[in-house]
């Protein structure tokens, strides 16, 4: 039984060696085809014709299968994968427990070769679809992707890695990230608990620390150091060298803290499944070192899915945040609502000047720390309840006063002139002209519509002409005929005969009509991706 995988390997190597050349030639052919395909797509950037898509999918499918075969054949990949997994495992080996590591390695060396072989086989089988998707993506986007700035020079390998979009890498990263994000969300929980007074003594501690920072900003640097030393490293040390303090079990806790009873606003609302906290011990590891829970992050079912959900809501929150930021940058800061933006701008300027002048005479430490304490105490649920009625009154008053802000928006509008051509077609006799169209094209013999023997874009009634986008016609102006034919003709490089206000060629004549258009303001800026749609 144990020999069968080895036999299979041998068979595989034999076959792959035999078809090596064939595969290579196929690959070369495929890449040239892809290049040709890419060139074709380049010339028609709007969409890929259906045939090409089908061809692309088929070739990428083929390509992926070849790639898979190549992986199986290639000896270099297995070793590299084994190397990386081993090095990451090495980190978790403890220098103080050499005897156990030795005992384990003694066992693992025996069947490690077979294990890795099986692993790689599974991997390649799993990732066939990913390979396919990858190939498909590279087919769809033939150009080089735009690059990002890097701090240093990248090696060729890294460049290639950072260039390609790979479903495998994306999902792998997500899979690795998800179990690790648990602590981040724990942290988020604790922050929420602090800010909502659900851990009241913690909140008071936070306030005290904030006050200390206010009085000496250097604390902002020293406190993290203190935290790393005593919050992270000392517990780590205690884990390894316990102080041997025995804790006696307490059946019931008697007595309460005054601070807690006064400031309590209910316990935390987050729910955790019982036994969700995993305790890691060396004993458990040695007992069943190949239990799946340690290796495969997916098997910690509930926790994994919960983390995935949290990541999802975190991304949703990020999207919402970026949207509101965008609204501010392009809306308020982009003068979308001019009245509101003007008020905001003036407010900022006022506060800048006011604070700039006054700041010298203010004890900022005191003010800031008072403000922090005041705002936190104000946000306490109990205090909020008491302040409730006052707040409503205040709001109503504000609403009353905020009606006329005394702003005058009367910048002179931007004015420009627009033109259309009134085109006549020659009738039966040379003196007989018939009205043909109002058009924004001159429609001279060199015009592209004229060459195609198509009528130019235009309308038959002057009222149907619209101003350019975002502009309006000046209601006090009319369409006026431009009598200075020579001038506008030479400006546009047209050399035809002139007849009064008309420019005449062999079968058409046209005159130029101009009118004033106005615009109060240019359109507000938009983010770049909005223009493309």
């Amino acid at each position, binding site marked *: 039984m144990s020999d069968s995988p080895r036999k299979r390997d041998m068979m595989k190597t034999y076959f792959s060696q035999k078809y090596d050349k064939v595969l290579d030639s196929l690959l070369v052919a495929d890449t040239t085809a892809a290049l040709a395909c890419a060139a074709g797509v380049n010339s028609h950037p709007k969409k890929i014709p259906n045939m090409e898509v089908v061809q692309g999918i088929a070739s990428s499918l083929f390509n992926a299968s070849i790639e898979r075969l190549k992986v199986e054949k290639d000896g270099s990949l297995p070793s590299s994968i084994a190397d990386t997994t081993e090095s990451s495992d090495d980190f978790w080996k403890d220098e103080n427990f050499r005897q156990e590591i030795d005992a384990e390695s003694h066992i693992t060396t025996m069947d490690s070769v077979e294990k890795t072989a099986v692993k790689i086989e599974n991997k390649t089988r799993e990732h066939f679809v990913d390979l396919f998707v990858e190939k498909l993506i590279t087919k769809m986007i033939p150009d080089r992707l735009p690059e990002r700035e890097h701090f240093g020079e990248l090696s060729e390998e890294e460049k290639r890695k950072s260039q390609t979009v790979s479903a495998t890498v994306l999902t792998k990263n997500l899979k690795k990230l998800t179990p690790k994000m648990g602590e981040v969300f724990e942290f988020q929980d604790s922050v929420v608990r602090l800010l909502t007074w659900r851990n009241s003594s913690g909140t008071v*501690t936070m306030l005290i620390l904030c006050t200390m920072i206010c009085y000496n900003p250097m604390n902002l640097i020293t406190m993290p150091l203190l935290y790393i030393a005593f919050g992270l490293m000392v517990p780590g040390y205690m884990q390894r060298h316990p102080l041997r303090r025995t804790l006696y079990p307490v059946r019931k806790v008697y007595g309460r803290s005054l601070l807690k009873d006064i400031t309590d606003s209910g316990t935390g609302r987050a729910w955790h499944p019982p036994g969700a906290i995993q305790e890691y011990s060396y004993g458990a590891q040695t007992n069943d070192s190949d239990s799946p829970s340690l290796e495969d992050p997916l098997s910690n079912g509930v926790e994994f899915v919960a983390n995935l959900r949290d990541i999802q809501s975190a991304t949703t929150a990020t999207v919402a945040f970026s949207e509101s930021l965008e609204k501010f940058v392009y809306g308020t800061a982009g003068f979308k609502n001019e009245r509101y933006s003007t008020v905001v701008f003036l407010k900022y300027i006022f506060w800048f000047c006011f604070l700039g002048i006054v700041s010298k005479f203010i004890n900022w430490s005191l003010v800031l720390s008072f403000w922090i304490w005041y705002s936190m105490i104000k946000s306490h649920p109990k205090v909020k309840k008491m302040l409730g009625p006052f707040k409503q009154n205040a709001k109503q008053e504000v609403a009353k006063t905020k009606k006329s802000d005394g702003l005058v928006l009367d910048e002179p509008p931007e004015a420009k002139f627009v033109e259309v051509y009134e085109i006549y077609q020659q009738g039966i006799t040379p003196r007989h002209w018939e009205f043909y169209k109002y058009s924004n094209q001159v429609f001279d013999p060199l015009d592209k519509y004229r060459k195609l023997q198509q009528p130019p874009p235009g309308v038959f009634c002057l009222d149907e002409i619209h101003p350019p986008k975002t502009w309006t016609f000046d209601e006090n102006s009319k369409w006026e005929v431009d009598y200075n034919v020579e001038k506008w003709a030479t400006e546009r490089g047209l050399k035809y005969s002139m007849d009064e206000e008309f420019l005449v060629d062999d079968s058409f004549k046209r005159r130029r009509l101009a009118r004033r258009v106005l615009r109060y303001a240019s359109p507000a800026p938009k983010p770049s991706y909005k223009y493309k749609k």
Partner: protein
Amino acid sequence: MKNKGDKEKAYRCHAKFIYNHGQKPTLTFVTPGNVSSVLYRFYPLLIIFDGALNNIMWICDDICQPFIHLVMIYLVINLLSLLDLDNGSLNKLRIGSIFTLWLGIMSGLSLFYAFAYYVLTVYQDLRDSEPPTLDDIVIALESVVDKLATMRSEVLGRAVDVSRWKNLTRLAILFTPIHYFLMRQVTIRTYVMWMTFIALLYHSTWFQCTMKLCWRVHAVRQAYYAITSFFDDQRKNYRLSTLIDAQTAISFCSNVKYVPRTDSLKMLRGHRLQLQLQKLYPWTEPIIGKSKNPQSLDNIAVIDFTIQENQRKWRDEGWTSRMLSYEKPHFCMRIGDQVVACKSPWEFQEGLPAGWEWLDDCWRPIGWVYSDSNWVVTGERDSLESFTRTKTWKRRIFKDQSS
């Protein structure tokens, strides 16, 4: 191959730990009634005391509370800064000091109220809930006792032994100038504040771990031993200005045995005398003779030299003769009550003064004895526990006093 590996894995059997906290027989029926009632009355006090100890050791459920108490105590102590104001400047008392005063009084009051509230709620809870069993009370008592024992060991762990008057005097002599200097340089407020801080933080796990981690630094140990050697008469003598050689060793040696010149030894000189002595007094047995010089010339003085070779285990190099600067040197010997550094046995052998001769042919080693970092013997085999080891070299010399 694979099957064999699997089998080995399957048969790897791990021993189990022993847990002491099994079910204990209840104390309710074996305790006299009056003891139980006393304990029951004592119980609320125990709980309050336990809570206070928890605060001092920073092991309560809510770690923020001791911190808040610490800050409040700081604010109360800060009131002392008002003492520093001169009487003259009291007239122009600034808003800042009024604020300090207010904060100090408020935090003092709230500390007092918090304590009173705690005591009240303890009594209230005890009244409202079902009465505790005797085992509960005993557990609380054990917990208090254990915490006190921990605190005592933390305070006195490496402290100077002050039970002797001599050391107490020395301590006073050492600290008086330091305190005098401090009183000159530092205000009362700062002094009281730092002392309180240290006292309140000392038993926290952070402080203890920090001390343990600092103890890993060689310089810290050196400083510690430099200071404590002032109190420890033993350790001062490890290093004299020069290494002891045979001549000084003999002159300082008080453990000279005098063997009477019996019939079998008469007339023997030099090498033959040595052989005979070896025959009469094998090196495995101690020599029985008079330790006082009997004033007669017909005696043979014998000295049993014992040199200790010390080694220390280093993480990377293993066992080497490199020792810490404050501890026993590589080779040392005991002279009287003192342990002093001496030359190696082989150097020793060179400088034997005239008249003295070696009784034994060579130095006899007695195998390594392993001990921990503080030279407390752990056994005869190297283990994780042992960081130092000692080998004893023995050789005897004799002098024919008649010659």
